[in-house]
């Protein structure tokens, strides 16, 4: 048990460093889309929700699981869609050399 905890901590640490390094200089126009995209990723709790809801431990799990799934799914679907819409606002102009 403690072994998996440590393994989880290792993963968490590495991913944290990776998150720090991934984001460098973001033009402020991208701040909101980036935030929104990251937010959609945090909807990954949907996986947890699925597991809880699917485990079938009785009505509490069912009900809570249902709400968790709904919340997380709104977050995921809404998040990605919204991000995409925002990004569609700036399409590359033609003719640039970069």
């Amino acid at each position, binding site marked *: 048990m403690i072994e998996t905890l440590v393994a989880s901590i290792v993963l968490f640490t590495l991913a944290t460093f990776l998150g720090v390094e991934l984001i460098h200089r973001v033009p402020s126009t991208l701040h909101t889309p980036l935030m929104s995209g990251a937010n959609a990723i945090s*909807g*990954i709790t949907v996986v947890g929700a699925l597991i809880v809801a*699917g485990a079938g*431990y*009785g009505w509490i799990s069912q009900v809570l699981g249902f709400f*968790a799934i709904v*919340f997380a799914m709104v*977050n995921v679907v809404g998040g990605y869609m919204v991000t995409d819409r925002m990004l569609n*606002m700036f399409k590359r102009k033609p003719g640039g050399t970069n």
Partner: protein
Amino acid sequence: MAPAVAQLLYLLAAVCFILGLKWLSSPATAVRGVRLSSIGMVLAIAVTLFDRTILSYGTIIAGLAVGGAIGLWGAKTVKMTSMPQMVALLNGLGGGASLVVGSAEFLKSELLGEVLPVDVSITIQIALIIGAITLTGSLIAWAKLQEVMTGRAITFPLQKTVNALLFAAAVGLSAYQVSVPESVLWPFYVTAGVALLLGVLLVIPIGGADMPVVISLLNSYSGIAAAMTGFVIRNEVLIIAGALVGSSGIILSQIMCKAMNRSLANVLFGAFGATATQSLKSAEGLTVRQTTADDVAVQLAYAQSVIVVPGYGLAVAQAQHVVRELADLVEKKGGTVKYAIHPVAGRMPGHMNVLLAEANVPYDKLLDMDAINAEFERTDLVMVIGANDVVNPAARTDPASPIYGMPILNADQARSIIVLKRGMGAGFAGIENELFFNPKTAMLFGDAKKSITQLVSELKAL
């Protein structure tokens, strides 16, 4: 599905998130980034559905359908201008999901009379607290942005102390919960309630303009909550994705603060100190919109037509050479740059000509007022560099103004206007300029030479 295969597919999903985030931070790859990241999400959900022995598909299908539909509808109908509050709302729901999942695991164990391992208990408590704070904090942020509640900072005496006490209470109760083996439920409910309250209290003292930073920070929190949920249910993709969002969200908050020339601490707790935010309001209470060099650089990179309006400030800053360099860069990126020379720009006849000739700006790019005024409305971006009176609409509209009747450059008709000056100082005529308060206008404050030098390096980096 074999657990190993599932784990490898989860890893693939995590890689999608990693690359997705990376690509999202550059304009050229951002669209690709969202797509990839969403593929990762679909993958993670699919793996979960197939992997675990899901007993009751009913609830799940219903949940997915309802949640997906709401998300879709929300995203389709929200107005472009309401994006920030939309993100706040979504983020709150994400936090809420973590809160619910944590609660469910906790309640399940209590109901089944299981004794959870200490580490799981701890992480459940963390997921709970962070999820709750994210939920109510995000809702407050939404309310502030949607102007459901006042955008102003709400403070009351001893606010920091109260917050600290509440936080201590939540942590203490959690610790108690974890350490007491028998089944007690009240600390759980109280902890949840305190954390929900804390979310509200932490956000209300922050001004509406700073909400994006708060949302980004809460987004980071909801990532951490997700990671904690991962600890609870021993799921790697949750841990990785959660940690990624957790750390990148903090970095993003910092970048956003830096772009506003503030520190994160100042944003979060600024309302308690002296409110040193400079007043950039006109006599009628209008406020100007401030912008940053990297933002203007992106606009320049995507603008097809740019007009530079130089004024006396350009001369004072001796920015003629850097302006030329900036224009060259914009043209290299595919835009066109022209210079609109007002007859009385500067302090002597031909002042702008002298400067721009020194910087070798080709003469055919210097257009006088009559030649260029009709072009403004077809122009993507106007950069007003240290000019003031010559673009003051009061000359057209306000008969009481000392400059009434002077023909001006129609900078206000462009699609977007950037004004470079040191502060809100007036020009030669000593009067206020309503152009600066135009909703299409953004101010880039600072010495023109310094600002443009910064623009040049930002533009090169794009």
